[in-house]
């Protein structure tokens, strides 16, 4: 039996002894313990050092509101989870936990020197002090501060565990499995609703798990609880999710839940995920999140052994862990009396009950008096003593609201504090519901829903077990009815329990001027009442600014215990009421969620979808280097042994210019446009005319946005009167199809046209070069490839290697060329056949880099590289594509706007460096006069730049103001260390007459 374990009671399993370690020391606990309850049962209260001052800290709360007891749980080097709340870590055999933010040890933390200089580290200290010299911030101050003020450390190895996600729909989602949530589930389930109930704890029940002597319908509360949970789990229409935290409330009743599946197990089954993310779309939501107790803000309120009164009660009642032997109670709320009574019954000596109120009055006070507890009214705490645990408190009599009367030191090892209950409105607030200030409760409560949601029980400020049950039942019934289920379920609950009346305070306890010790508002971020007052004195008024300046409410607990007291202090300092102070915004997550849960299966290969062409495997086998083009993997170049990229690209380019090359163009976007209106439709979409294009012919098409700017380009094949095979850029196809669908559906629904994406259906093999015809001719059947029968820019249907093909004669290199379209499944086989057939001609596979060089030598643009969304067809030398007789097409009217024809517009030109060895940087700016002062005025920029093997020099394309008129001029590229002179030339640099297209 451990030192502070009560001999009976509690929900722990005394037959299940669990060994665990905390900071290397072995301890024992029981099944049903949390790490926090097991530590308390072992008499351990010092569990952490504070964030900024490294002050010794103990366990304050019993649940998600715990501000201090952050620990790292270590399974192995890859599985160590920092910043877990000891109050939420379920004990299992062999659990290893470590405290954080201390060196060398928890008991002797050398950084605690910060505590001695605490008066010198006020709010905004870092902002004020470490401002100069600037370079020292990143090299000196920040690393030191980060080392000093730390939370846990992340594991250094990749997470080996699996995380999954599930989507769910339900009629009624209930958040919280306490009395209100369970009653809501009963009502909604009886109405036939599909119910999902989640609760962050290991066991459903909430406050019922420590309900003392309360009875429901004549049964002990815990019996009622187990019967109710059993009844609910028997129902087909109810799903119960313990260990599942609803952490985010997103629009239209989409809630995110994090389920801890195996973290609590000593030996998890390998097939189970560690955690599971639920994304639930609920018709109706019932929030039954309960309430948490507010700490009292008094001097020295942060020593280990000073706890929330109800938390201390819960440790005794639920875990049979005695949190101390001699307790002083300090309170402004009835709840602490209940704790005092129950702890006294467990053998804890109550040294004093100090109630700041002058005339506390209620059934709990009466019971306390009857039990002989030493109650002192109008009494407050002005200080505490004790190093690693509280050893005494200084009590002081209040006269007219200020301490001034005699003070007395009372020895104790436990202090129970209570300033009242704060409804948990975080989720409600995330749903964008409107909060209302309740003066009696001294708390914000839900004031108006934004979503199809209702709060029930303590989280909407209705205290007490009876009220929680009946309100929960009523809200559950209403939610089921609103979700369209059967209505009218009625049930009354007969409850006997002595319960605290609402009340309490927010802010700092009145202590007068004598108090010297800091009164902490935010334990986790080490923010004191004095810090908040200082922020106000320094001129911060908005609560959002005070929050960021002092960091109150900003830690991993998001101010669960501190926000209301911070508002109270601000109200006390400024004299404004709390509703006038305002409220900071609640954001998800409610409690921290692991990255693993958020990432789910989207890791490594599954992180992002990858698209591969049918010839991908072949390219891999050839040792191709790939580049990403959107989600596509494209062969960038095919290095041979010992070749650098530059060598490989040069060899590939030379092969195409000399004989023949092979290129995988399968990623090109493809859209099949069919129907009687197809030609009319394309006439309206493209600047070109397609109704005049004969079947069997190709045309290079340019597409504008309605604003007149080039959006996409590609070759369009007319296969028949009512059938077109449209190609687009690799990256543009979804945009193009979207725009086509848009006009077809919304502007021209009268046109008989169907659009089908066929990008993935066709593999495209480009064969380019002088010997292209010679290579493919033996493989092709049913098509006459002779220049007369199949001229440049034509399309024929036939077979290649026995496979149906749409054969394009087209060139993006300036050489004689074909693009072989075959069904994707045959892509690799045909590719390999062409490659084999070309071996006699020295065929070479080339990648996207060589493709870029070859097209740039010809001045062919790449939309998105040479255009930037502000280029007209004329700007990039494509004015000739515009159908001259057309009266309308998308973008035509815009081309007539004055700005679109201004002579100063940037135009596409070629740029040749005077020193032919220098390859310009893409994106570099061009100036006319390099001697002008900085900032210089730019006359253009470089859009494409390469080494050209064919021209044996560097080449570039650029957009230059009035560029075509500048041909022959010299411009300059100012770079950081030099200025490069370039001559402006026409954009077609290689074979400007285009004779090589004929082979």
């Amino acid at each position: 039996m451990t030192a502070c374990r009560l001999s009976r009671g509690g929900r722990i399993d005394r037959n299940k002894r669990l060994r665990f370690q905390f900071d290397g020391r072995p301890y024992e606990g029981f099944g049903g313990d949390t790490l926090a309850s097991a530590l308390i049962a072992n008499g351990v209260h010092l569990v952490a050092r504070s964030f900024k001052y490294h002050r010794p800290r103990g366990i304050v709360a019993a649940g998600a509101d715990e501000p201090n007891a952050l620990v790292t749980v270590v399974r192995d080097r890859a599985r160590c989870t920092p910043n877990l709340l000891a109050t939420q870590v379920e004990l299992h055999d062999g659990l290893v936990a470590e405290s954080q933010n201390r060196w060398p040890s928890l008991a002797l933390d050398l950084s605690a020197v910060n505590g001695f200089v605490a008066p010198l580290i006020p709010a905004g200290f870092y902002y004020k002090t470490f401002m100069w010299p600037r370079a020292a911030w990143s090299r000196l101050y920040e690393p030191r501060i980060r080392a000093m003020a730390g939370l846990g450390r992340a594991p250094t190895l990749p997470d080996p565990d699996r995380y999954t996600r599930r989507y769910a729909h339900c009629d009624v989602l209930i958040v919280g499995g306490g009395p209100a949530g369970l009653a809501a589930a009963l009502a909604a389930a009886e109405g036939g609703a599909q119910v999902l109930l989640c609760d962050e704890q290991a066991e459903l029940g909430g406050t019922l798990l420590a309900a003392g002597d309360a009875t429901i319908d004549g049964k002990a509360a815990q019996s009622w609880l187990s019967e109710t949970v059993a009844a609910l789990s028997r129902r087909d229409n109810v799903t119960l999710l313990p260990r599942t935290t609803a952490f985010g409330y997103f629009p239209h009743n989409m809630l995110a839940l994090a389920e801890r599946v195996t973290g609590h197990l000593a030996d998890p089954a390998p097939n189970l995920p560690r955690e599971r993310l639920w994304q639930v779309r609920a018709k109706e939501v019932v929030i039954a999140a309960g309430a948490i107790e507010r700490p009292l803000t008094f001097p020295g309120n942060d020593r280990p052994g000073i706890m929330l009164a109800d938390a201390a009660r819960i440790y005794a009642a639920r875990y049979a862990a005695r949190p101390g032997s001699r307790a002083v109670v300090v309170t402004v709320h009835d709840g602490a009396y209940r704790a005092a009574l129950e702890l006294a019954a467990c053998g804890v000596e109550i040294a004093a009950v100090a109630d700041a109120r002058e005339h506390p009055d209620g059934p709990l006070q009466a019971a306390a008096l009857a039990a002989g507890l030493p109650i002192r009214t109008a009494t407050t705490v002005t200080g505490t003593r004790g190093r690693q645990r509280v050893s005494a408190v200084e009590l002081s009599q209040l006269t007219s609201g200020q301490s001034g009367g005699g003070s007395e030191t009372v020895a104790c090892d436990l202090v129970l504090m209570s300033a009242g209950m704060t409804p948990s409105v975080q989720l409600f607030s995330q749903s964008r519901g409107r909060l209302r200030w309740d003066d009696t409760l001294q708390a914000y409560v839900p004031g108006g829903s934004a979503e199809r949601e209702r709060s029930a029980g303590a989280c909407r400020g209705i205290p007490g077990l009876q009220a929680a049950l009946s309100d929960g039942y009523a809200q559950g019934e209403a939610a089921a009815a609103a979700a369209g289920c059967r209505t009218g379920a009625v049930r009354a609950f007969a409850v006997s329990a002595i319960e605290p009346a609402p009340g309490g305070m927010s802010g700092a306890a009145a202590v007068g001027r004598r108090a010297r010790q800091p009164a902490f508002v935010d334990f986790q971020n080490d923010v004191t009442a004095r810090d908040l007052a200082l922020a106000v004195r320094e001129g911060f008024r908005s609560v959002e600014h005070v929050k960021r300046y002092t960091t109150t409410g900003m830690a991993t607990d998001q101010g669960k215990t501190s926000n209301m007291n911070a508002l109270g202090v601000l109200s006390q300092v400024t004299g404004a009421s709390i509703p006038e102070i305002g409220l900071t915004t609640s954001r998800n997550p409610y409690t921290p969620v692991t990255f693993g849960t958020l990432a789910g299966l989207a890791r490594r290969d599954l992180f992002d979808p990858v698209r591969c062409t049918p010839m991908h495997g072949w390219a891999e086998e050839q040792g191709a280097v790939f580049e990403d083009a959107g989600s596509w993997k494209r062969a960038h170049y095919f290095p041979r042994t010992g070749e650098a990229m530059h060598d490989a690209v040069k060899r590939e380019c030379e092969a195409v210019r000399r004989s023949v090359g092979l290129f995988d163009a399968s990623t090109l976007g493809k859209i099949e446009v069919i129907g009687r209106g197809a030609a009319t439709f394309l006439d309206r979409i493209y600047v070109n005319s397609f109704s005049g294009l004969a079947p069997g012919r190709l045309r290079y098409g340019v597409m504008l946005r309605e604003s007149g700017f080039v959006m996409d380009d590609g070759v369009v094949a007319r296969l028949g009167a009512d059938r077109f095979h449209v190609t687009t850029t690799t990256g543009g196809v979804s945009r193009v199809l979207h725009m086509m669908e848009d006009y077809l559906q919304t502007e021209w629904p009268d046109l008989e046209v169907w659009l089908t994406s066929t990008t993935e259906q066709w593999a495209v093999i480009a064969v380019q070069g002088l010997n292209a015809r010679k290579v493919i001719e033996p493989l092709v059947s049913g098509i006459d490839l002779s220049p007369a029968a199949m001229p440049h820019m034509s399309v024929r249907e036939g077979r290649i290697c026995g496979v149906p093909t749409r054969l394009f004669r087209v060139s993006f290199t300036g050489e004689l060329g074909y693009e072989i379209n075959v069904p994707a499944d045959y892509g690799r086989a045909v590719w390999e056949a062409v490659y084999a057939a070309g071996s006699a001609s020295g065929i070479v596979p080339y990648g996207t880099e060589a493709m870029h060089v070859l097209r740039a030598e010809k001045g062919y643009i790449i939309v998105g590289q040479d255009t930037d969304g502000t280029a007209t067809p004329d700007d990039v030398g494509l004015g000739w594509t515009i159908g001259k007789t057309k009266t309308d097409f998308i973008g035509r009217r815009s081309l007539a706007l004055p700005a679109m024809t201004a002579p100063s517009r940037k135009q596409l030109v070629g740029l040749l460096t005077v020193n032919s060895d220098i390859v310009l940087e893409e994106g570099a700016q061009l100036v006319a006069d390099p001697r002008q002062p900085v900032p210089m005025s730019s006359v253009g920029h470089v859009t494409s730049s390469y080494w050209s093997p064919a021209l044996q020099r560097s080449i570039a394309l650029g957009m230059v103001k009035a560029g075509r008129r500048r041909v022959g001029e010299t411009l300059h590229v100012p770079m950081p260390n030099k200025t490069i002179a370039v001559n402006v030339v026409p954009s077609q640099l290689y074979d400007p007459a285009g004779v090589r297209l004929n082979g």
Partner: protein
Amino acid sequence: MLLIRCPFCGERSEIEFRHAGEAHIPRPLAPASLSDAEWADYLYNRTNPKGLHIERWRHVHGCGRFFNAVRDTISDFFVMTYKLDDQRPDLARLASGQRR
């Protein structure tokens, strides 16, 4: 995540849809006859209201159809969705219905 009722497929999550700007702005039948100012107005000027707004959505990862939706830009809730050839709803009446 928004829940959007496609008039053809029913309620689906926002990720299946693509927003497509303000609705009921037909492309002029004869753009060439418009003044530069009128054309610029068609191209660029939108109402951007605070409150009920009629906008186009496309169920791009579903049926692929465009449709119109009335959304409250303050609350982000949809009042209704309808097919392109349905009649434009009376926003004033919808707004007063919302207030009730």
